[in-house]
């Protein structure tokens, strides 16, 4: 997948992706795909055995996947979290903050533009799923 961007050091999973609906019946599956309307919380009991969760973005305007990502990270998921689909360069920074650490965009992204988009802001105003320290915390130590 030449378009992919990955911000992880471990080996990428090569297991086939299983749809969320089919996942409970496949006790060996370690990679799953969530569609925008699906409830990411259904995966919470199974996070330990998952190596890859792919969140679908059929249209960039559909922001449900941002909540799915945060919910999974807040529940302690440590594996790869991939945004797939209509993923644009100006969305990568928010997606990283919500916990995505890999990207499979439909259209290739210019790595320099991505790098630039990720370095626009030195700080953040609010806590999210990343390690960025919110400005209020910087103010009050």
């Amino acid at each position, binding site marked *: 997948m030449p378009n992919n961007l990955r911000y992880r050091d471990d080996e990428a999973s090569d297991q086939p992706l299983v749809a969320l609906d089919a996942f409970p019946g496949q006790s060996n599956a370690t990679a799953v795909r969530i569609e925008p309307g699906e409830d990411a919380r259904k995966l919470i009991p199974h996070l330990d055995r998952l190596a890859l969760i792919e969140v679908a973005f059929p249209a960039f305007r559909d922001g449900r996947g*941002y909540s799915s990502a945060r919910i999974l990270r807040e529940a302690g998921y440590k594996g790869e979290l991939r945004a797939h689909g209509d993923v644009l360069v100006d969305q990568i920074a928010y997606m990283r903050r*919500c916990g995505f650490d890999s990207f499979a965009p439909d259209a290739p992204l210019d790595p320099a533009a991505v790098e630039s988009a990720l370095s626009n*802001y030195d700080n953040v105003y609010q806590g999210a799923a990343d390690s960025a320290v919110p400005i209020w915390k910087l103010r009050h130590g």
Partner: protein
Amino acid sequence: MYKYDNYDQAMVDARVQEFRGQVERRLAGKITEDQFKPLRLMNGLYLQLHAYMLRVAIPYGTLNSGQMHMLAHIARKYDRGYGHFTTRQNIQYNWIKLEECPDLLDELASVEMHAIQTSGNCIRNISSDQYAGAAADEVADPRPWAELLRQWSSFHPEFSYLPRKFKFAVIAADEDRAAMRLHDIGIQLVKKDGVLGAKFFVGGGMGRTPMIGPEIRDFVPAEDLLSYTEACLRVYNRYGRRDNMYKARIKILVHEIGADEYRRQVEEEFAHVKTLGIDPPLAEFERITEYFAPPAFSADADAKLDRSDPDFAVWLDQNVKPHKQDGYSIVNISLKPIEGISGDASADQIDAMADIAERYSFDELRVTHAQNIVLPHVAKRDLHAVWSALRNEDLADANLDLISDIIACPGLDYCSLANARSIPVAQKIAKRFENLDRQRDLGELKLKISGCINACGHHHAGHIGILGVDRKGVENYQLTFGGSGAEDVSVGKIIGPGFDEDGVVDAVEKATEVYKEQREDGERFLDTYRRIGVAPFKEAIYAK
């Protein structure tokens, strides 16, 4: 008022640089208009009928005279010498060139202003009571809460691609001067056992499907404000409808699942979100609150007012409101001259208001959701000087809350969504009721005009509302009666078949005649309508 620290300034500066890059990519053809659209919309830039329109945020409607001067400068340098104050307490410029926009934003950033999230399906500018910090009836100044929400919502990574736009209003008095319950989230600050907290109303709104927001939580303490708000938004982001943009606002979700079920889901989410540590300490509240400390009021501000000039006296009675501090008043500047354009001000007028605020109102101004300007802290001894200075700039119309103080959207004259013109209708009605004695005899009468069903002119909340529609290629105007955006909130009802432009002006006049015949002591138009119902009005208006 709030002042940026280095962190705030760096965020706004970074946004200007980011947008500059996005504009450069667009102008170089590296991204398509379709890809550019969500980026420019996130920064308040709309492509309108004639040019780009830029909406500049005025957080909770508060600004200082330096910022006001900058708005005048921008009107001169980048527009055609005018600005348009909006119902969201913002300002819009209608003739902006894309290639000049980054420089414009740089200039705004130099006075701690921006256009961040003034459009797009994200959390918009937080609005508030224009009398905040000056009204005697507030339990606290609502603006520190609004500022905390402003910072939390700026560049929010999870809530920047919501199903639809999202608007907050924060007030702190029982009298609602901000149409709080017609917002996606309306917050009223209240005290419980001496502690300040927020009462949450969720799912109000105007647009195609007007709804009054139900109460979702009677008390959210300060230390839970962001967690609770985040829970409200997360439920919406996950379950708000995305199949139909006209059903995508949170009001539809709350209405479809019911306030009780929405509340249950929010509480469940909140129990989880509260564990994440996303709420700032109370020290951050206190830091922000200090910026909103009352100004250094003078002990000898009071004065016996000479009311011998009848024009001054009527302005005092109509546009000047009581202040919580002895010797001070709140001055309303009407941007509704007869035959003007609601909310428009020239660069010279904007400069003049800035100068007057600097000299007489502790450097502070407010924008109201009714598209007027407020000088929040004027010493009584200065009222005559303020009035004279305003009159020199044609800014002393004494029509606050009267029938010619009309909220109107830009309508078909500017807006690509509109079906009908709003401005000429507003002008004709104001002209018909030009006589100020006649207007004052009619008393408080809130007339609001929208040029399409999206209701930017708040017609649902008008005591008299006018909705412009397109009927087989002809502009047609529907009348609604009985709406209110205040604490007696209600949605107006259509009274019957629509009218042409002159017909609707006649119908409004007939309605005021029915009111005058039927009113009882102290009743406003709205009260009489609520008491006697629509029938007597219809009878007079539709009589053959």
